[in-house]
């Protein structure tokens, strides 16, 4: 659904940070994690994940390192302490927002 893609795009930074919460991943694995975690509704052009990862790295939220795997050089990303803090605060903000919307859309009977 188109709306899903728009909403996901608005939260891309948070989703990228969350996909790295349990350890370092390279770009393709980040993309796979987003697709699996969103029931394949994540239909942004996956090539745009790489510039977003670079931007988060420049902002000090991720740390990227080149690693050799299967004869191909790939760039692996991991959360920095600042990235972990940002993810934690984004998560709280999302829960507050989601519970406020739920309270309006699904009032208790």
């Amino acid at each position, binding site marked *: 659904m188109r709306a899903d893609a728009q909403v996901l795009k608005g939260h891309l930074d948070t989703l990228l940070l969350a996909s790295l919460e349990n350890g370092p991943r390279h*770009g393709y694995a980040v993309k796979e994690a987003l697709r699996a975690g969103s029931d394949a509704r994540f239909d942004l*052009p996956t*090539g745009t994940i*790489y*510039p977003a990862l*670079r931007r988060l790295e*420049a902002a000090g939220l991720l740390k990227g390192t080149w690693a050799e795997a299967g004869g*191909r050089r*790939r*760039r692996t990303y991991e959360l920095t302490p600042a990235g972990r803090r940002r993810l934690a605060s984004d998560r709280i903000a999302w829960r507050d927002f989601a519970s406020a919307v739920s309270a309006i859309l699904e009032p208790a009977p």
Partner: protein
Amino acid sequence: MSALIDDYLAGLHRRLPAALAEEAAAGLLETYEHHLASGAGDQEAAHAALAEFGDLAIVAGEFTRQAPGRRAARLLLATGPVSGACWAAALILSRAWTWPVPATARLGFGAVLLLAVLALLAAATSRHNYQRTRLAMLASPVILTLDVTAVAAVVLAAPAPTLALRIAVAVSLGRIAFTAWTLPRLTAR
């Protein structure tokens, strides 16, 4: 390998710095191989991978819009008018035209500042051309040097700096710190 994929990879390398192109290329190849491994024919796998990955213009454009040089240039341009207004006010209040600064130095300073601002404008407004965002790598050190020159001139030459001059110096020191902090990020790989 499919000619479609080859063309796309060549396009990435033509439009982006090597490290960025290499990273995106590895992602596209992995997508393509994933489709091949799940039984698709060569053409079919190439079309599926490219559809999933996004047009070259979209991907290269996104790298450009999120380039550190473009962001640094935008921040410098956004703070430029504040710094410029502070210096203009301070110099007018101090009757700077009576200072013993040679005309060539004044003109030189103005010309270098103008060129640096034009380079920053080009970097800040680039939407599809990554190379243009790299102008910020040239212009930022120039702006830094101009700020240092202006501060040094006041500290060394102004007999009793007015309050306005002190404010202008403080604004410039802030920009010097910011520019020095962003410079290593512009060249990071």
